[in-house]
Structure formats: C-alpha cells, structure tokens
C-alpha cells in the first residue's frame, strides 16, 4: 500500500514544489442552494429532500439569494473582483449520488475572481508572509452520500451495493481555487496548512459556514507537482482528495512530495490522477486516472437566469464585512499586550476564535490563552484532533476559569474537571460536584491535618518555631498530600505558621 518515499530534505534539495488548493465550503444557509429543503447535518437519511434536490422529472431550481450574498462576501473578504454578470452552468457527468447527473455549477463565469489571501508562516528567518493568489470562487451544489455495503474493506472497491442518502445533495458549496502557488519551497506544506487555516478563520469570521472539517463542511483537494527547479517547466500533477483536517493538509502534501520525488528520482513518470488521502495510515492511494475522455460538456444552465449583482449591493456588502483577520490580529495583540510570535502561536494552534469566544464568555485573555494553548492543546495533540474538535466549548472553559478564580478549584483540580468534561460528564461545576473536587477551605479540617503533620515531623515544627519559616514547605507538602491536593496551599501555609506561633 505505501509507496517508496525519499527523505523530505532530499526532496527539497532536488525539487521545487508547485501547489494548488481547491477548497469546498458548505455554506451555513438554512435551506439548500436551489430548493427549500433544510440543510441540517445528521438528519435521518432522505428526510431533507424534495423533487428539485432529488432531480425528479419536472423539477426546477431557484437560487438561494443568501447563498449568492455569502459568495460575494467571501469573494470580497478574499480581495476578489466580483462579476457584474455571471451564469450558472451544467457540468455533465454521471454518478449515482448526483441526482440530475449534472452538477449545477459555474464554468467560465465565476462570481468571484482574482483575489488573494496573505498567510504568515514561521521560517528559519522568522515570520514570513506568503501571498496565496485566488484564481476564482464560484457557486455550486453538493452531492448526496453513498454508503458502500459488503466487501471486505467497507470502501467502494469490493462493495456489493451502495445505499444513497440525498440529504446533502443540493447544499450550497463555494469552491475556492488558488492559482499555482510557487516559491514556497520547503515551507509548502506549512503554507498550505496556514492558508486553509486562515481561510477557515476568515469564513468563520464572516459567519457563512460552520467550517467543520470533520463534518465535511470544509473540504480540501490538493494539486501538487514537482519540478527540478523554479525555472523548469511544470511537472505532472496529482490531485489528492479527502484532505479533511489542517494536520492532514500538511501531512498529505509532505507525503505526496516525498512520493513523487521518489518516483522522479527513480526515473518514473508521475501519472496524472486523482489520489485519496488516508488520515489513518498517512498515505495517499491511487484513485481515478484523469483520462482525456473526460468531457463535462458545460453549457449555461437554461433553468436559471444570470446573476448580476449591482455595484450598490456589492458596496453595501463590502461595507458590512467584519474586520480582516490580519488587522484583527494586530489589534488583539495590542489589547492583550503580547508579542507577534505569541500571537502567531495562537493562530497556528487554530485557537484564535476559541480564545476570543472564551473571552466573550467572561474569562480574561491571559487565562483563555493559557487553557487553549496549554492543557487543551496537549489533549488535542494526544487525541490527534483539531483543537476545535475537542468536546469542550469556549463557555465551558470560561466557566472552568471562573471556578479557579472563585477559589473553588486550583489548576490541578481544574485539569481533573477537564477530564470529566471531555468524558462527557457534564458542565464544569457539575463535574467538580460529582467528582468531589473542591479546594478544602474549611480551616478546622485543615488544622486537623496540620496537627497530624506537626506530630509526624517535630523537627520541622521546631525549626519554624525557631523562626526558620522556610521549613514550612515540608509541612505544607505533607498536608497537601494528605488532602489529595484539594487544599489551598497558600491557606495551609498561613495556618501552619499561625499554629507554630509565627
């Protein structure tokens, strides 16, 4: 299954990668692109379908105006030009999960074109800004979902039959296509990851999509080719599909660079094909060979009329755009009083929106950053998931911090509460209750433990009585151990000194 690879440094020494990214974003509209069916994720199969999204004979599409508005806003946020007149087109090919056997999309008249998104990447020479140029962003519709039944792998190959659910068919998609990204060299995987991450933050900031990669509402296809030098002609590219997490974007590109380089080094030609990324095994495998026979027979969709956004409408949408991510990050850096590098680590961890949400729920900026970049980032890494996919909300983190601030929890207990929240035991306060986690603040209970500690370590007690207050540490440690960490160490120290006449 896995192909021969060569070392990444060796790839960079001998080849120059050229990247292209196609990102599909499912818009968060209430209804579908061309009909009024709901778009809720996870509904019972085939309960969000109608004649139009099932492609029944006689049905007709009508464009969701909010989807067009979202497309324009995305284009504006990506510094694109907006077409003053454009049409939908039919992309004709047969596939069982595509009800009409054509996808209603846009062809040579995308609604947004010629834009860019700047992303910052840490390099050996410090933070460097890469400009990712956007070729186009266009509107289209999603397909249904097939469940392949039978066979040994559960995958499409070897299946006996398939079961199709069309709930997803017709959900509005925006496809954002970059121009070939050149000159990133060894940073190509990081630039791609930073681009997808920045795009995700931008889309979330616009409020146009929930951008959940694990639910498929943001999907990434990666085109990659290698050439021997930046002056050499472009090499044959592969298109890797199914790259559905930020980590995977980086890993898949790295893998594909190593795989292609191994082939090229061996004198083997790259086949122009679709490849599939497997998150579990960390490899890409060969899919469909792109043949010349592929002919989508695009033509303007006669069932829909052209979209011609007025200049006034575009300007109105432009004036209502949220603060661009780069400006926002500069502003927040100043507000929080942190360095550019610290800010970058928040962004790279995919934590900015989570931190902001936590602040919005009442936590202070430093504590919000501390939790997301510290304990929670560690958990996410252990589980191999994105930070945002952890089963804890910004509200819960803010509540947790409030419990710490109120003196009910210390950091150690708070980490145990996180265990409980992640395990689905409920809200932080409830987890603390049910697990009996609470700083012991009852002085009489503490005094009992202190007196036991004094009795057990008379030498230390005498030293303190003699004025060597530094010796208190041993007794405080013993008390903390006896109370299983639930005591407030500061209070214990005060009481120890008080008991011993200091």
């Amino acid at each position, binding site marked *: 299954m896995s192909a021969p690879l060569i070392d990444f440094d060796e790839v960079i020494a001998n080849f120059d990668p050229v990247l292209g990214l196609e990102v599909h974003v499912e818009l968060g509209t209430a209804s579908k692109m061309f009909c009024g069916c709901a778009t809720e994720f996870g509904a019972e199969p085939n309960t969000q379908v109608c*004649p139009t999204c*099932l*492609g*029944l*004979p*006689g*049905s*007709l*599409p*009508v*464009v969701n105006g909010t989807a067009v508005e979202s497309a324009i806003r995305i284009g504006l946020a990506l510094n694109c030009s907006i077409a003053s007149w454009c049409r939908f087109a*039919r992309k*004709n090919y*047969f596939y*069982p999960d595509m*009800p*009409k*056997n*054509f996808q209603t999309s846009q062809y040579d008249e995308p609604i947004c074109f010629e834009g860019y998104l700047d992303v910052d990447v840490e390099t050996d020479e410090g933070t460097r800004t890469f400009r990712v140029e956007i070729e186009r962003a266009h509107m289209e519709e999603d397909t249904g979902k097939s469940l392949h039944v039978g066979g040994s792998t559960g995958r499409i190959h070897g299946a*006996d*039959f*398939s079961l*199709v659910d*069309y709930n997803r068919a017709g959900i509005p998609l925006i496809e954002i296509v970059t121009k070939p990204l050149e000159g990133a060299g060894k940073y190509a995987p990081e630039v791609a990851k930073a681009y997808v991450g920045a795009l995700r933050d931008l889309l979330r900031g616009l409020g146009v999509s929930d951008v959940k990669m694990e639910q498929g509402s943001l999907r990434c296809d990666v085109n990659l080719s290698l050439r021997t030098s930046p002056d050499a002609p472009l090499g044959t590219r592969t298109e890797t599909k199914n790259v559905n997490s930020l980590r995977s974007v980086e890993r898949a590109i790295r893998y594909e660079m190593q795989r292609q380089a191994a082939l090229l080094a061996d004198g083997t030609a790259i086949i122009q094909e679709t490849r599939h990324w497997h998150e579990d095994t960390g490899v890409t495998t060969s899919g469909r060979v792109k043949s010349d026979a592929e*002919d989508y*027979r*695009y*033509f303007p969709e*006669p*069932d*829909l*009329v052209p979209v011609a956004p007025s200049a006034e409408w575009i300007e109105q949408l432009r004036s209502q755009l949220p603060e661009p991510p780069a400006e926002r990050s500069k502003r927040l850096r100043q507000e929080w009083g942190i360095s550019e590098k610290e800010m970058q680590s928040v962004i790279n961890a995919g934590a900015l929106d989570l931190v902001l949400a936590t602040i919005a729920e009442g936590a202070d900026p430093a504590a919000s950053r501390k939790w997301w970049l510290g304990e929670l980032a560690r958990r996410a890494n252990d589980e191999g998931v994105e930070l945002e996919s952890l089963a804890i909300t910004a509200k819960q983190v803010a509540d947790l911090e409030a419990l710490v601030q109120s003196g009910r929890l210390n950091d150690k207990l708070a980490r145990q509460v996180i265990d409980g929240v992640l395990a689905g035991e409920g809200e932080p306060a409830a987890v603390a209750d049910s697990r009996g986690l609470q700083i012991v603040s009852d002085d009489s209970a503490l005094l009992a433990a202190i007196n036991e500690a004094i009795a057990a370590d008379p030498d230390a007690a005498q030293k303190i009585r003699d004025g060597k207050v530094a010796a208190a540490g041993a007794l405080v440690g013993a008390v903390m151990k006896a109370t299983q960490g639930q005591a407030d160490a500061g209070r214990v120290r005060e009481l120890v000194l008080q008991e011993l006449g200091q």
Partner: protein
Amino acid sequence: MSDLIHASAVELAAQIANKTVSAVEVAQAHLDRIAEVDGRVNAFLYVDGDGALEQARAVDHAVASGQALSPLAGVPLALKDVLTQTGVPTTAGSKILEGWRPPYDATVVERLRDAGVVILGKTNMDEFAMGSSTENSAYGPTHNPWDLERIPGGSSGGSAAAVSAYEAPLAIGTDTGGSIRQPAAVTGIVGAKPTYGAVSRYGLVAFSSSLDQAGPFARTVVDTALLHSVIAGHDPRDSTSIKEPVPDVVGAAKSADVSKMRIGVVRELSGEGYQPGVQARFDEAVELLRAQGAEIIEISCPSFTYALGAYYLIAPSECSSNLARFDAMRFGLRTDDNGELSAEDVMRHTRAAGFGPEVKRRIILGTYALSSGYYDAYYGQAQKVRTLITRDFEAAWASVDVLISPTTPTEPFRIGERVNDPVAMYKADLCTLPSSLYGGPAISVPIGLGDENLPVGLQVMAPVMADDQVYRVASAVEKALAQQWGGLLLDQAVAL
C-alpha cells in the same frame, strides 16, 4: 347527452354554473366518449375516471353551496402526459418512466385544480416530446380523428386528437418547437404557445428547458384564451417565469377587432415545400384579414431559414443533459440489476431499454454538439442564430403588430411515412420554430381544408408578452370563417 361533448367550454361552464347540467354529468359524458372512440384514436395513455368524477363532484358541491366559480369550473380537460400530477402515472410517452407516479403536482395542474377544471386523464405524446407525429410514443401512435391513417401531429398529438375527437373540450399541451401549434393545425383545432415564461414549467418533464412552454388547446379561440388565462401567471418555483401580469387574452379573443392592425406576412415561410392547398388557404385567410380592415405588409425575416438548424442543435443539446437523470437509480425503470452488473452498466442497459430510437438519436446528437471541441461550432453557433432570429422579429415589430404564416408546410402525412427520415420529419416544424427560438407567443387557428381534404392552420406570431394580439387575430379569422362555414371547421370532419 351527446351535445355535452360537442359544447364549448364556455357553454359547459355556463350550464354547470346555472345547474342546467351537473359537472359529474359532463365528466361522465366525456368518459363515455373516451370509452367509445379512444380505442381507435389512442389519445389517452391513462384515463383517471375516479379522479375526474371526484373533482366534478367537488365542483357540483361548490355550485350547490353557492360558492363563486372560476370561468372554467367543471369543464373537463385532457392533460399531456409530460406534466406531473400527484399519484397519477406520468410517463412522458417513455418506457423509462413506466409505472412512475410523481409525488407532486405541476404548477399547471395546481392551477387547473384551483380553477375547478376536471382532469380526465393523461394524453399520448412523442416520447419526451421529441417528435412531430406522436409516432415516437412508447405506447403506440395516436391517430388523427380526421383520418385514422394520418398522424395527429406532435408531440402533443394525444391532446390535440382528444379535443378534435370530442373526448375533451380542452387540453394542455407543451410546445418546444411547434408541438402545440402543429398538432392543432393538422387536427383542425386551436392551439397556442404562450410567451416563453408565461406559464410555469414547474412539473413539466423537461425536453429543452430554454424552449419548453405549456399551452392550451380548444375548439374555439375564446375557450383557448380562457384556458390560457387559467394556467398563465408568475410562479416563484420557475426562475424563468415572467413577473408581469398576463395580458388580457380573453378580452382580445372576444373583441376580434383587427381593424387598423398591421399584419406582416413572412416571405420566408412560403414557396418551395409548401403544399398548394396550404398556400391557397393561407392566401384566403390573408384576404379575410384585409377585408376586416387590417393592413397587410410583406416582411422578410432572412434568419428564419436557419431556425431548423439552430433548433436541431439547441434542443438535442439541452435534452442530452435534461434526460441524464433517467438513470435507474431513484425512480422509474431499472433493468438487468442482477447483482453482477455495476451501477454504471445498469444505467447503460436501462437507458438502452427505456429510451426509444428518436430519443437516443437526439441524446447522441446533443452530446456531440456540447462536447469539447464542437461546442462553439454547434451549440454556440446555434445560440448566435437565435440572436439573429430575435433581431428579425424585433425589426419586424417596427412595422407590424403581428406576423402570420401557415402553421405547417403540409397537411398531415400518413403514419409511418417519415419514420425513417428524421430530416423530413423535422421539416414539419419549419414554420413554428422561429417563434420558439425567439420566445414570443404564437397560435394556430383552422383556416380550411387542403388538397387532401385535411385541416390547414394559420399561425399568428406576436412580440414577447403580446399574447393578446395573437388571440385577437385568430379570433377575427375564426369569426369570418364561421360565417362562411356556418360553424367550426371541425363540423366538416367525418364523425368517428
């Protein structure tokens, strides 16, 4: 009872409203007529007797309770089997849809129901409306009531024949390149293609989306206008539906005043290929209009010559895409699903078994015309011709109010005569194609019998959204001829 089947829609509606006759009696009389003659005509693919009587009873109930009635309440109608009706088989004349009962109503059907029109059943048609003779139906040809050996025109041949054979006073057809006007002409009745976008296409099984338009058939111009007014109007479910109010077609049909109108005779739609009898009837109709005070002006529309070529590229291209959904996955026929064949092969086999030869021919042609490397030469070029045809119409409107021509170059040919010659078959639509490509309204009205004693029609074409004008002119012709004949042309047909 038998005069119920010969009555006009206007007369029937009046009699039902004033309780001279019940809607149930009217429906039953037509169901009886269908039972009597349809074995020979084959106009209907499905007769919904129970449904029709139930709708009729509802109208009678409304009459009894004194509710306000629409002008066509209780009048029976034949529906072309290309429009969806909830729970009623809808085949589009194709084997691939055999047994399919749609889960939703076409907007046209909804409007008919709301108006209390009684739907008798679904009528035969060329498969997916591709044809000019109704011979391409998977369910056998429809016969022309004037001569059962002849074609009734197409693709709405079943609807036209049903009205012509007194099986229904009203019918709905669809017209993509002449599929209402041409059958109306050759069965001696009235048929109109409204302005593209005037009648919702929601629920109309698409053939060529940019050309398809549903419209009315009846035996008189006023009945046709009434049905037009019931089904037309904006529908938010069809993006190409026109928002402007429907012109007063009924008022225009009733007025029939053509004095001071400027009427253009299209030079390119005459001459070689036009039967002498057709040309003679047309020339007489022109004189009738002149006699009523219309100014007759000869107009040249040079691009009309290219309409046939443009149409037979645009329509097949769009159909190749529209018919892709018939793939055996979600509805309709599925063949050879033996557990061994893949989805792709089951699609190939089902489409091979489910589509007839003309449909396959057009899908292949359209696939070719859209394929990369040929798009510009074929589909793209055809769309440019469409622009030229529109310009010819626009230029004509500077000097005339309407354009007229024969509806068809010839009288109806014999069943089987042109089945192996697609191009000859396509020429039946020569006169009707230009206004289809332009999108304006057009009507066909009977103007007499030709060389073979079979019906000949006059086509009237008008600017986009000037549907009232075609009714005005058609009505004037109908009125003048009624005086000559002492009735309708159809009265001259041999009774079935």
